[in-house]
C-alpha cells in the first residue's frame, strides 16, 4: 500500500478558480516523486492541499490518504496531530518560512515538543543532533542563532531538519531549492537524500526545474493547468516523453552537455501557460500543441499507458512516438558573418574596475568593512559578440552592469564604451551614448511602469532622444513587430500582458534607439521554461538581424551556454575565468568554474554524477578571506593540504611543497593569467591544472 495516496483531488481558490482539476498520485515509502510544472500549473496548491494548509476560502475535494487514513475534511485540530509528525513540509523560501524572532534550535525543538511530548531540554538536544545531521557546522552553538544569521542554504537545511524531526512517513517539499544558488542547490539536494535515507519517508518534490527532478526523483509527474499530463519512471519520461507538452519542455530546455547546434534549433512551445483557473477545455494544452487535431476537442484526454508505469494524457500518443517530429528543429539564424574577433572594434572595454559600498551603519565607516561588490574587473566586448557573465548571487554581476550603465567616472579603474572613456563625458555626449547602450532587466513586472501603456513605454526613449513626433507611431509599430507582439498590444497596460509579452516590451524599449550594445540582466530568469525558450530565440534572432553585441548576465549556466560566444565567471567581485564559451565549458581551468558546472543538475537522469559538491557557502563580501577569495571552498586548495591526494605531484613536492603551494593561495590574490595563445581562455588561479 502506498504511504501517501492522492486521488481525484480538486482544489478551487476563491472566488471560483479551479487550480487543481482531478489529480491522482501515489508515493511509496522511501520513494521520491517529482511533480513538475510551470507557474499556474497548480503544483503548489497540491502541496498545500495535502497538508490542509490551503489559504482561507480555498476548497479541496477528492481524497488524500496517509497510510490509509483520509486527511481531507478533517478539522484543524485533528490535522495538527498529523502535520509535523507523520507528514512534514519543506517550503520554498527559507527566509520567510522561518519565524524571524525565535532561535532556530527552539523552532526545531518546538516541533518535537508538540508531538513527542519531550522535555524542553531533550527537545533542544535532539534539535542540535538534527542540525548536525543536515550538515550545519558547530550545531550546538548555531542552534541558538536566529534565522537572519544564516545563509539561504543553511536556512533551508534548518527547514529540512525541522521536517524530519519526528521521523515523518511523508515529506512534501515545495520548490526547496528555487531560491538558492546552484552550488547551494546541489548541497540541499544531497541533504534531501540524507533526509530520505534517515527517515525512509516518501517524498513529494515539487519544482519547476526538470534538472532537479532528474537528479533526485524516482518517478515524475508533469502537471499542466491543474492536471497530470504525463507521469512515469524518471528515466522513461525523460528519454521517451509521449505528451507533446513534456516533449516540448524537454527539448526547449537549454543544456550544458549538448554543444550548441549551428543552423538549427528545436521549435519552442508557442504561447504561454494558461493562467490558473482558465476556462475548462478538453485538453488544456490544445492551444499550444503542434500536433493537435479535431479529435482533441472532444473530451479531456484520459491517461493512457505508454510504457511500464508510464502514462500520458494525450489522444494522439501514436503521433508522439517520435518526439523529434512533434517539435521539429527549425532553422536558426545563421551565425552572423563577421570578421575575426581581433579585427572587430571593442564596444566595451573595462580595466581594473572597482565598486565598494560603505558598510551599513554610519558609525562603522571603515574601509575594512566595505562591501567589495566589484573588486578589480577587466574585460572586453567586441562588436557583434555575446559575453556571458555568470556567477552566484552576490558575486557582483549586477553591480558591474550598473556601473557600466551609469556612464560616470567609476570609483577605480576605467570604462570605455565604443572607445570613449566614460570618465570624461560631457552630459550631452553621455546622453547621446545612451542611444547605443541599452539594458533589459530581469523582471519585466518591475521594469515597466505599471501606469504607462505599452505605446507610451515605447515612445518614451524616442521622444527623449528627439525622434520627430511624426515618426514615432511608425517606429512603435515596427518595434512591436520586431519583438513578435501584435499592434493591439500597444494600448495595453503591462498588467494585462503575460510575463513573456512584458519581457518582449522591455526588449522593444531597449531596441527603440537601435543600440549597438545591449546589457541583459538575467533576462529570462523570471520566466517559465517554455517562455524562456521563446525569449532566448528572440534574442538570438535580434542579434543575428541587427548585429548587436550582448553582455548577458545570468546565474543559469545552461542558458548562457546557449547564447554566449565568450564567458566570464565572476566570484566575489572578480573575474576568475574568462574565455571562449566552448573552451570554458568543456575544460574549465578554474576550480570554481568546475564546481559551478558540476553543480548544475542535468535534465537527464542517466547523467546523475558522483559530483563534487562545494562544501562552504558563498563568502561574505564585506570580509573576504586573505589571499584567494575562493580558498575556503576550493577543492584544489584542500587537496594541497593533503599532498598525498595529488598523485602526480606527491613525490616531487612533498609535504613542504604542499605548504609552499598553499601559502601562495593564502597570501596573494591570483590575477588573471595571460591567455593561452592556443585557446581563448584564462583563469585567475595559482594552481591551474596542467595540460592533460
Amino acid at each position: 500500500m502506498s504511504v501517501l495516496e492522492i486521488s481525484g483531488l480538486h482544489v478551487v481558490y476563491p472566488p471560483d478558480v479551479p487550480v487543481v482539476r482531478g489529480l491522482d498520485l501515489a508515493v511509496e515509502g522511501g520513494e521520491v516523486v517529482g511533480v513538475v510544472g510551470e507557474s499556474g500549473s497548480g503544483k503548489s496548491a497540491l502541496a498545500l492541499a495535502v497538508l490542509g494548509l490551503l489559504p482561507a476560502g480555498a476548497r479541496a475535494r477528492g481524497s488524500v490518504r496517509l497510510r490509509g487514513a483520509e486527511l481531507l475534511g478533517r478539522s484543524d485540530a485533528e490535522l495538527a496531530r498529523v502535520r509535523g509528525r507523520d507528514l512534514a513540509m519543506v517550503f520554498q523560501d527559507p527566509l520567510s518560512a522561518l519565524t524571524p524572532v525565535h532561535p532556530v534550535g527552539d523552532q526545531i525543538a518546538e516541533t518535537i515538543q508538540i508531538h513527542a511530548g519531550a522535555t524542553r531540554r531533550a527537545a533542544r538536544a535532539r534539535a542540535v543532533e538534527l542540525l548536525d545531521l543536515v550538515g550545519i557546522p558547530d550545531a550546538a552553538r548555531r542552534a541558538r542563532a536566529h534565522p537572519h544569521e544564516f545563509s539561504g542554504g543553511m536556512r533551508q537545511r534548518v527547514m529540512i531538519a525541522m521536517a524530519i524531526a519526528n521521523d515523518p512517513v511523508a515529506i512534501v517539499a515545495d520548490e526547496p531549492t528555487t531560491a538558492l544558488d546552484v552550488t547551494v542547490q546541489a548541497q540541499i539536494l544531497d541533504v534531501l537524500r540524507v533526509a530520505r535515507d534517515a527517515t525512509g519517508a516518501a517524498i513529494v518534490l515539487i519544482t519547476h526545474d526538470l534538472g532537479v527532478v532528474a537528479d533526485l526523483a524516482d518517478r515524475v509527474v508533469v502537471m499542466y493547468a491543474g492536471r497530470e499530463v504525463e507521469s512515469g519512471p524518471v528515466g522513461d519520461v525523460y528519454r521517451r516523453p509521449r505528451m507533446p507538452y513534456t516533449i516540448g519542455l524537454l527539448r526547449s530546455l537549454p543544456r550544458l552537455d549538448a554543444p550548441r547546434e549551428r543552423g538549427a534549433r528545436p521549435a519552442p512551445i508557442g504561447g504561454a501557460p494558461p493562467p490558473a483557473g482558465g476556462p475548462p477545455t478538453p485538453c488544456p494544452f490544445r492551444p499550444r500543441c503542434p500536433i493537435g487535431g479535431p479529435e482533441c476537442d472532444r473530451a479531456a484526454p484520459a491517461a493512457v499507458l505508454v510504457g511500464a508505469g508510464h502514462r500520458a494524457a494525450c489522444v494522439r500518443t501514436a503521433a508522439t512516438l517520435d518526439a523529434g517530429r512533434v517539435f521539429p528543429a527549425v532553422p536558426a539564424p545563421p551565425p552572423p558573418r563577421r570578421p575575426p574577433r581581433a579585427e572587430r572594434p571593442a564596444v566595451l572595454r573595462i580595466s581594473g574596475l572597482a565598486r565598494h559600498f560603505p558598510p551599513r551603519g554610519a558609525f562603522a565607516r571603515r574601509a575594512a568593512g566595505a562591501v567589495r561588490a566589484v573588486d578589480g574587473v577587466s574585460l572586453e566586448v567586441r562588436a557583434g559578440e555575446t559575453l556571458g557573465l555568470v556567477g552566484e548571487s552576490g558575486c557582483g554581476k549586477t553591480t558591474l552592469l550598473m556601473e557600466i550603465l551609469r556612464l560616470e567616472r567609476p570609483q577605480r579603474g576605467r570604462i570605455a564604451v565604443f572607445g570613449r572613456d566614460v570618465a570624461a563625458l560631457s552630459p550631452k555626449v553621455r546622453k547621446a551614448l545612451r542611444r547605443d547602450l541599452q539594458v533589459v532587466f530581469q523582471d519585466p513586472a518591475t521594469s515597466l511602469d505599471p501606469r504607462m501603456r505599452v505605446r507610451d513605454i515605447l515612445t518614451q526613449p524616442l521622444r527623449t532622444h528627439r525622434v520627430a513626433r511624426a515618426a514615432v507611431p511608425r517606429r512603435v509599430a515596427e518595434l512591436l513587430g520586431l519583438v513578435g507582439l501584435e499592434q493591439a498590444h500597444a494600448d495595453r497596460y503591462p498588467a494585462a500582458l503575460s510575463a513573456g509579452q512584458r519581457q518582449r516590451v522591455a526588449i522593444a524599449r531597449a531596441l527603440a534607439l537601435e543600440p549597438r550594445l545591449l546589457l541583459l540582466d538575467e533576462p529570462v530568469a523570471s520566466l517559465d521554461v517554455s517562455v524562456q525558450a521563446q525569449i532566448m530565440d528572440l534574442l538570438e534572432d535580434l542579434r543575428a538581424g541587427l548585429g548587436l553585441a550582448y553582455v548577458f548576465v545570468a546565474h543559469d549556466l545552461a542558458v548562457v551556454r546557449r547564447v554566449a560566444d565568450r564567458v566570464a565567471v565572476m566570484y566575489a567581485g572578480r573575474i576568475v575565468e574568462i574565455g571562449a564559451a566552448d573552451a570554458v565549458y568543456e575544460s574549465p581551468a578554474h576550480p570554481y568554474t568546475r564546481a559551478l558546472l558540476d553543480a548544475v543538475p542535468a535534465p537527464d537522469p542517466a547523467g546523475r554524477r558522483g559530483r563534487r559538491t562545494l562544501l562552504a557557502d558563498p563568502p561574505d563580501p564585506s570580509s573576504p578571506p586573505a589571499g584567494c577569495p575562493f580558498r575556503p571552498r576550493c577543492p584544489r586548495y584542500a587537496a594541497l593540504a593533503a599532498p598525498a591526494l595529488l598523485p602526480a605531484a606527491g613525490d616531487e613536492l612533498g609535504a613542504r611543497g604542499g605548504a609552499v603551494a598553499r601559502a601562495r593561495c593564502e597570501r596573494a590574490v591570483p590575477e588573471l593569467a595571460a591567455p593561452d595563445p592556443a585557446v581563448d581562455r584564462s583563469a585567475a588561479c595559482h594552481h591551474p591544472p596542467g595540460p592533460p
Partner: protein
Amino acid sequence: MTRPPGNRRAVAGAVLLAALFAVAFLGPLAAPWRWDQTDFTAFRAPPSAGHWFGTTQSGRDLFALTLRGMRKSLLIGLLVAVLSTGVAAAVGMTAGVLGGWVDRLLMFGVDLLLVLPSFLAVAVLSPALGGGTGVVLVIAAFLWMITARMVRAMTLSLKERDYVRAARFLGVGPVRVIVRHILPHLASLLVVDAALNVSLAIITEAGLAYLGFGAQPPDASLGTLIADARGAAPAYPWLFASAAGPLVLIVLAVNLLGDGLRDALDPSVPRCAGRAPRRGPRDGVPQALCAVRAPAARAPGKREDAA
C-alpha cells in the same frame, strides 16, 4: 483578499461627506434663523418647528450655529489637508530625490517638529494669529511631518525601481523622471493621506475651540458649542448632541473615505502576500516591493494625532 469592503467604505464615506457638505452649505437657505440672531423669547428651548435644534442659553438658534460650526470645520479640514499634504509631498520628495545633507537637514526638521508638542504649540500660536486663515496655517504647519516621512520613504524606494532606472538609462532627465514615474505613484498615497489629514485638522480645530483657543464668542465653532453644552449635558442633551453629533459624523465620514481609498488604491500594485511564481537567486525585487507597503501601512496611525 477581497477589495470590495474598501470600496464600500470609500463610497459610504463619500456619500456621507457629500450629504454633510450639502447640509452645512445649503442648510442656511432653509433655516428660519441666522447664526448671529438672538431669539429673546426662547432660552435653552428644546427642538421645535421654530428652532430645529433648539436654542442656547442666550437664545441663539442652535441649528444655525451648528451649521456655522460645520462649515468652519469642513473648510478648515479641507484647506489644512491640502496645505499640509502639499508641504509633505514637497519636503518628502525633495529629501528623497536629493538625499545627502538636504535630506538630513529636512529630516532633522521633521524630527524636531514631531518632538515639539504640536497641540500646545498650535494653542500658543493661535491667539496671536487670529481666527480664520491663521488657524489653518498653524494647524497645517504641525500636521505634515509624518506624511513627509512616508513620502520620503516611498520616493527612496521608487527611485530604486527598475522602471525608474530604465528611464534614467534611456537618458530621461531627472525632472521628467519625477513627473512621469514618481509623482503618479505617490498620488494615491497623497490622496489617502490628505483625506486622513482632513479629520485630524477638524478634530484639532474643534479641540482648540473647546479649550477656548479658537473661535471667540460671538463666533461659534463645533468645539465652542460642545464646551458650552457640556456642563448642562445631562439636563439639556440636545445642546450637546447637536454639536457633538455633526462633529463625529464629519470625522467618521472622512475616516471612512480615507481608509476605504487606501484599500482601494493601495499604492503597491502587487500584493506581497501573493507569492512570486518563481525567482532566480536574485530575488531582491519582491522585498523591494514589500518595503513600499510599509509606509502605506503606517497611515492608520495618522488618524488620531489629536485626540
